[in-house]
């Protein structure tokens, strides 16, 4: 479906985009957009930081649809980190149907996917990185990675992360931090760091085992000082502060995480006073909204290169003198940050979020070869066509997305449970309507190191409390109390939610199997990817199976899956999925 001129004018009028400016003209086709448009940049200063975050092991190009629902507490609505669709386009002045609109929003996604094609991929990313290295001089460029790099695809899972480390070495990553990296377990993390050319730094991971040698000691180097373009750049690492609650504890037993803002401040001071750096950078996996809070509480940071929440932010935000950028997810973007810093001070900067449009940026042949080699051992399994999908399968949104629903359907069908939980991660994939679903796609949705679906009993009252607890992790008005994911997706359940209500009172009309929840009744629950089974009783051990196997078998049985985008959650206090600042509507 093409947007007609009349539609465009209508949309433009709604958004007030009449005078919108963008580097990309609205209806240029790939052939009309030149590389020059994508590469266009006003080079500034003495060095460049290139940035990626949350590529989730996507070394090949993919389709990735941004959220159509991104709800938060009223005080955060419409602020960067909680922008999507129409409110995103309005905030950043995107032109409808432009390449930027295709990359940054869900609007008209299917039509634009046909027009612009896939996104990301290391071979295409490398071409862009090398372009900048050539333009600026290799010795003036650093490439920083905010983490969530080693996990998220079949090839990552099957090689224990090694394929992705090879990809990072090929791309030339200089420094990284972590989150899902830790789900390979402490020992494997150390092995992978050995293979990695980049430095792995974190000031907020500390030994927690009083019997171990590293008790209360840093596990990784807290920071690194790099010289580029005659400037001394201090880079402090901040891994995901809530790794031990968001993912199973056993992977990081003996390590403690946390925001640790007091020590962060000490390292900032140390870099400035003792090492006399020209620029202080925090390479972070805190999340975009948490890092805005970090900028308010910690003084003297010049730049935060953020990650975790998968926000594409075309413009930096500045809080108390700290500039914060974040570069989307799934390898869709590279952030380019040119900095002018000398004599202990930043004098200026220029930023652009560069879309890695893989139909436009040519592939580097060495990258294509590397990807082929890494995938070759698994080609037969990954390329198996499991079935077709009638509607677009996607992941994201605050309450519901179609690929999650498909996984819940698969679990409900096999486990014969009353309800199922699928985690509200923000990584995954998109399969366009009418296309084949490959086994590779299933791994892209649920390829984790703890894939078991557990089936157990939970009392109604506990289910209700759990849901409120999860809702408060997502909707707390204070970003420091959020964990940066979305609501768990539920199969067999419908409910209403008032996001702005106080903790513990948000959810109403909770129905299981079409009937109001009975708080005294014991329900059969299946879940994966979380800790819920620890709260349940009578675990059915004979039913335990990996979620990707359950999903594969279900799709094969169905042949054609038909999941509608009609969600199971009624949102009571907002009128749309992408509300604008200060309102409950769009």
């Amino acid at each position, binding site marked *: 479906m093409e947007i007609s001129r009349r539609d465009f004018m209508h949309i433009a009028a709604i958004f007030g985009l009449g005078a919108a400016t963008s580097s990309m003209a609205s209806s240029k086709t790939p052939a009309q957009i030149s590389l020059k448009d994508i590469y266009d940049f006003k080079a500034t200063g003495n060095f460049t930081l290139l940035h990626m975050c949350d590529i989730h092991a996507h070394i090949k190009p993919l389709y990735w649809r941004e959220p159509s629902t991104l709800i938060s507490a009223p005080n955060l609505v419409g602020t960067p980190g909680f922008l999507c669709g129409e409110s995103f386009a309005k905030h950043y002045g995107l032109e409808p149907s432009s390449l930027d609109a295709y990359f940054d929003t869900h609007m008209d996604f299917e039509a634009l996917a046909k027009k612009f094609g896939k996104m990301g991929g290391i071979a295409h990313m490398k071409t862009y990185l090398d372009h900048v290295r050539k333009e600026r001089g290799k010795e003036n460029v650093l490439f920083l990675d905010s983490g969530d790099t080693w996990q998220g695809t079949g090839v990552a899972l099957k090689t224990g992360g090694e394929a992705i480390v090879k990809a990072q070495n090929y791309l030339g990553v200089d420094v990284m931090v972590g*989150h*899902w990296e830790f789900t390979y377990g402490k020992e494997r993390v150390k092995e992978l760091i050995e293979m990695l050319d980049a430095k792995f730094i974190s000031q907020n991971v500390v030994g*927690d085992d009083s019997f171990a040698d590293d008790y209360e000691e840093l596990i990784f180097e807290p920071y690194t000082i790099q010289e580029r373009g005659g400037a001394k750049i201090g880079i402090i690492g901040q891994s995901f*502060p*809530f790794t*031990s*609650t*968001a*993912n199973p*504890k056993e992977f990081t037993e003996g390590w*403690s*995480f*946390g*925001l640790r803002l*007091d020590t962060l401040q000490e390292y900032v001071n140390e870099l400035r006073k003792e090492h006399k750096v020209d620029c202080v950078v925090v390479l972070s996996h805190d999340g975009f909204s948490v890092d805005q809070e970090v900028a308010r509480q910690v003084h003297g940071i010049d730049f935060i290169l953020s990650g975790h929440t998968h926000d594409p932010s075309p413009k930096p935000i500045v809080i108390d003198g700290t500039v914060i950028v974040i570069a989307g997810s799934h390898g869709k973007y590279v952030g380019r940050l040119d900095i002018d810093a000398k004599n202990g001070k930043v004098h200026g900067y220029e930023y652009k979020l560069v879309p890695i449009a893989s139909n436009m940026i040519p592939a580097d042949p060495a990258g294509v070869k590397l990807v082929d080699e890494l995938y070759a051992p698994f080609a037969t399994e990954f390329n198996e066509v499991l079935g077709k999908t009638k509607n677009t399968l996607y992941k994201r949104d605050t309450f519901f997305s179609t690929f999650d629903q498909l996984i819940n359907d698969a679990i409900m069908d096999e486990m014969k449970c009353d309800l199922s939980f699928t*985690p*509200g*991660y*923000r*990584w995954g994939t998109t399969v366009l309507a009418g296309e084949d679903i490959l086994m590779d796609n299933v791994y892209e949705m649920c390829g984790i190191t703890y894939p078991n679906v557990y089936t157990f009993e939970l009392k109604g009252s506990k289910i209700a409390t*759990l849901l409120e*607890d*999860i809702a*408060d*992790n*997502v909707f*707390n008005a204070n970003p*420091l*109390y959020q*964990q*940066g*994911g*979305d609501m*768990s997706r539920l199969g067999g359940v419908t409910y209403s939610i008032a996001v702005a209500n106080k*903790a513990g009172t948000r959810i109403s009309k909770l129905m299981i199997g079409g009937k109001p929840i009975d708080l005294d009744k014991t329900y059969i629950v299946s879940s994966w*990817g*979380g*800790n*819920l089974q*620890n*709260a349940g009783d009578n675990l059915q051990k004979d039913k335990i199976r990996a979620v990707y196997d359950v999903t594969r078998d279900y799709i094969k049985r169905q042949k054609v899956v038909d999941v509608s985008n009609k969600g199971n959650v009624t949102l009571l206090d907002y009128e749309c999925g992408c509300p604008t600042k200060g309102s409950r509507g769009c």
Partner: protein
Amino acid sequence: MQRRDFFKKLGTVVAVSAVAPMMSFAADEKKPKGPNEFSYEKAVEAITDGKGAKTSSKITLKVPEIAENGAVVPVSVTVDSPMSESDYVKAIHIFATKNNNSRCLAVHLTPANGKAMIATRVKLGGTQEVAALVEMSDGTFLTASQSVKVTIGGCG
């Protein structure tokens, strides 16, 4: 202060921390009720003799926003005080405000401690405020608190 006195005082500190149970599962009817068994509000009333405490930025209460493990939540309290004979911190109490037995720890200090700082781990029964109540040598009370989330699940 005599060395012997110091050890006596030190002994008191240790004893107090040792008898302050983090949690008791059933109320023991025979035991006389003390601040450990009181609710948070009642305990504050009993300790301050009804005077109450003033929120103060002199107290640095360090506790994580989200507990990694609700059973062992690290808490530290530092009070900005000269710890001189005329102006010192007499006692620091730590509360898990919604636990059944809300007082987790009480530490009595003298100027000889040199620094008003304690660190411990407390068990939290659920998401709640953790509070420090500080008794000053002039008989006034200061307080500081922070919410700690204890959560089963998270999202990636």
